[in-house]
């Protein structure tokens, strides 16, 4: 038994949380780390910060997309479209 309102709520929660993720916080915490001036740890920390910022941004963007897919599927169910799985497949199948 599908409950579209719960599905939609879950989708909206994903979108709200993902858009509020402090994308730069994890990266920012390590970016300027240094043990000694001119050492290797400083550049390594900056490079890691770049990688983390991208990783967290991609993850949060994908949670937005997941939430959108859930909400779209809920809408399809509400309209009586029992084939809402196709909505979930969506453009991601391109």
């Amino acid at each position, binding site marked *: 038994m599908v409950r579209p309102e719960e599905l939609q709520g879950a989708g909206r929660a994903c979108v709200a949380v993902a858009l509020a993720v402090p994308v730069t916080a994890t990266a920012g915490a390590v970016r300027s780390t240094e043990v000694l001036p001119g050492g290797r740890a400083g550049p390594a920390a900056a490079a890691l910060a770049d990688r983390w910022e991208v990783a967290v941004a991609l993850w949060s963007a994908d949670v937005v997309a997941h939430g959108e*897919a859930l909400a779209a*599927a809920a809408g399809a169910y509400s309209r009586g479209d029992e084939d809402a799985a196709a909505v979930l497949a969506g*453009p991601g199948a391109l």
Partner: protein
Amino acid sequence: MTTTLTTALPGAAAARLAVARAALARAGEVLAGPVPGWRGAAAGAAAGARTSLRERHAALLADVDGVLAALGTATVALAGGVPPAVVDAALAGALDGAGHTPAGPPPTGVTGGRGPEPGEVARWWAGLDPDTRAVLERERPALVGGLDGLPAAVRDRANRVVLAGAREDARREEQAVRDRLVRTADPVELASIGWELHEVRARLARLGAVAAAVDAPGRALLDLEVDAPADGGSGVRAAVARGDVDAAAHVGVFTAGFTTGVDELPGRLGELDALAAAAGPGTAAVAWYGYDAPQAHEVADPDRSVLGRAPAEEGAPGLASFLDGLDAARPGREAHVTAIGHSYGSVVTAAALSSEGAPGGAEGVDDVVYLGSPGVGEVPGRPPGHAWVVEAAGDPVADTAWFGPDPNRMPGVTGLSAREVVLPDGRVLAESRGHGAYLTPGTTSAANVAAVVGGRPQDAVLDRGVGAGDRLRRLVGG
């Protein structure tokens, strides 16, 4: 990437990282448990996507934990008198080894509906580092291209990538279907494959029309959705702008009606070019084909019929989100936005402006113009002086009042002329006749719509456009 000038020792970095980790961990809680309220086969794909996101989240946290441990070790080592050069080398090695968790493929793109609140999207985007934005644009073009509230240039670039990929996929699919066709002798299978071929060629043609529409200077592909083959095969929705909607002082957004689709985008853009030129400098116009307009063969289908509101109610949230996204993408310097709905597109437009639908109608629209409208419900969507209607002679649709009172007779709605008009300088604006010529360049109707879009309603020629159909309705009490 942004670089701060202040350096931090490992201990201070660890303290900050612990706080950031806690916030990231909390965010992941939204994915805990199965997808609520969903059972059965359709839940499988959602569950898979959710599991993948949970695994990536766990991997991110594990990565952070590893760095936290390395920072802690470095802190203890420094306090214990280990030479800084040794600690530096060890910490550098640990940091070099972190942050390599693969992101994985995108789960899905945004698929219709209202979508995230455009203001939140705009704020989220503004908070990202430019390099991170570039990565998102490159790695997640379908998502970025579909998010209302992002800058038009960003969406255009992303959607063009999606368009190119979709066309390539469709070409490959067509070739594969043709290969199967020539190897088949069974009549039943031939019919089935023939239908597949029809579907994929229809999709190719629609994608080609979108490509043709954006293949001109100043055009921007602001939205693109392509149904997966499993979802009907040929559905393509798009929004194409002429002019820069992020810089224009005036933006008109046209929504089409019954039997329309992206096939007509190239021709419609030509009309909108003329409309924007007539509206004046600093005007952009958008052809919004972002909903599945009802088609002739769907008249008997209650969920899809042009005689019902279902297609409009399904399309309205997406239009409302798109309209709100125009202003959200340019906070503090909003444009004068006019929504223009033709025929059934006026029903969609009115529904998008209505606050009855969750979670609320488009708020950033300043004026609305209904062309050849079969009715827009009980209220015109904008206050007097900002709601307009054009009814041409010989337009039977505009007299039906099928979806509520005839807007042409509705209080608070100002009628714009579609008749021939001789201007004071001697120029003649032509009459529009019938249902399909409201935006034909050189007509009074098109000039009037341009005046409203350009923020010069005082230049419009007013006329209720009451014709034989209206008089007949009055006689019969309609």
